[in-house]
């Protein structure tokens, strides 16, 4: 019973937190200062997601096979490879590194 309660709470909470912005401020042009923040939000969020997905394991910072995979993917991207190709190369690197490290 508690499990379903947990799922229900999280489902409602997730939709709520996603919807508050569009519900309150949907379709309206915000002030120029807010538009500047929104424009900067994407690079900030992406950078935050990249480092946390690469180096965070729960609350620990680790340098593991993921870092190797992301490094290879980054090089591929810098060499103008399409995202999918860079991703696959990174995945192969990560998998190989995981295998080698045991």
């Amino acid at each position, binding site marked *: 019973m*508690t*499990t379903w309660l*947990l*799922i*229900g709470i*999280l*489902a409602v*909470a*997730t*939709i709520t*937190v996603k*919807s*508050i*912005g*569009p*519900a*309150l*401020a949907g*379709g309206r*042009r*915000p002030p120029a200062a807010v538009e*500047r923040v*929104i*424009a*900067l*939000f*994407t*690079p*900030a*969020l*992406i*950078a*935050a*997601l*990249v*480092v*946390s*997905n*690469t180096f965070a394991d*729960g*609350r620990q*910072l680790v340098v593991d096979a*993921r870092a190797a*995979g*992301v490094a290879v*993917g*980054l090089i591929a*991207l*810098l060499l103008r490879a399409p*995202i*999918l190709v*860079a*991703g696959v190369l*990174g*995945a192969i*690197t*990560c998998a*190989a*590194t*995981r295998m080698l490290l045991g």
Partner: protein
Amino acid sequence: MGDMTIIRKEGLAASIPVALATVTIGLTFGVLAEPLIGAVPAVMMSALVWAGGAQFAAIAVVGAGGGLLPAALTGITANVRYLPMGFAIAPSVKGSLPRRIATASLLTDATLLIGRGDDSRFDVPRMVWATPLQYLGWVGGTAAGALGAGVIGDPGRLGLDVMFPVFFLGLLLPELRGSSRRRLVVAGVAAVVTLVLVPVAPVGVPVLAGACVALTGLRRPRDSEEDRR
């Protein structure tokens, strides 16, 4: 209506790398969650909550013996970055309230990034079309992990989880290439803030804090820094 077909294809195509990574993470979730809450609840959780961060965080608390309240609170905290994300897309989300809520419920990191246009605009149709493959990947991956846990072994074996950060980098680099110094600095500072907070803040907060570096945009830029597009 030819435009719509293009947008549909763009959104779907852009979501393919993400969908692959999503399947892997979904598999991992299914494998982890099944012994703790059962296969059907695990799949339903992915179908109804559809937020990896929150699901993993909540399950971790359950696995450590925590009760409903700490599990729920941990899960909700892990989702906290969706608040500014919602406000970021809000100006681009039009229509009636139910429609806006329905659109907002499709929001994920990847959807938001795929949908972003120039500066502060988001292409909602493209975002919507980036969703189906991700959702299918997430729920399908969870089901496969929960039901076939023994068979699949370690989902990390294929290294597909790395596709998330590589995908995000792939979106970031074109942004930074031709851009003002301000964006580079913001991205760099955001990365540092996030890293510093990982060991000391609850899961979900470091990414939120990094994203909030964007608040420096409130400060009026000096003319020499501003990029004009």
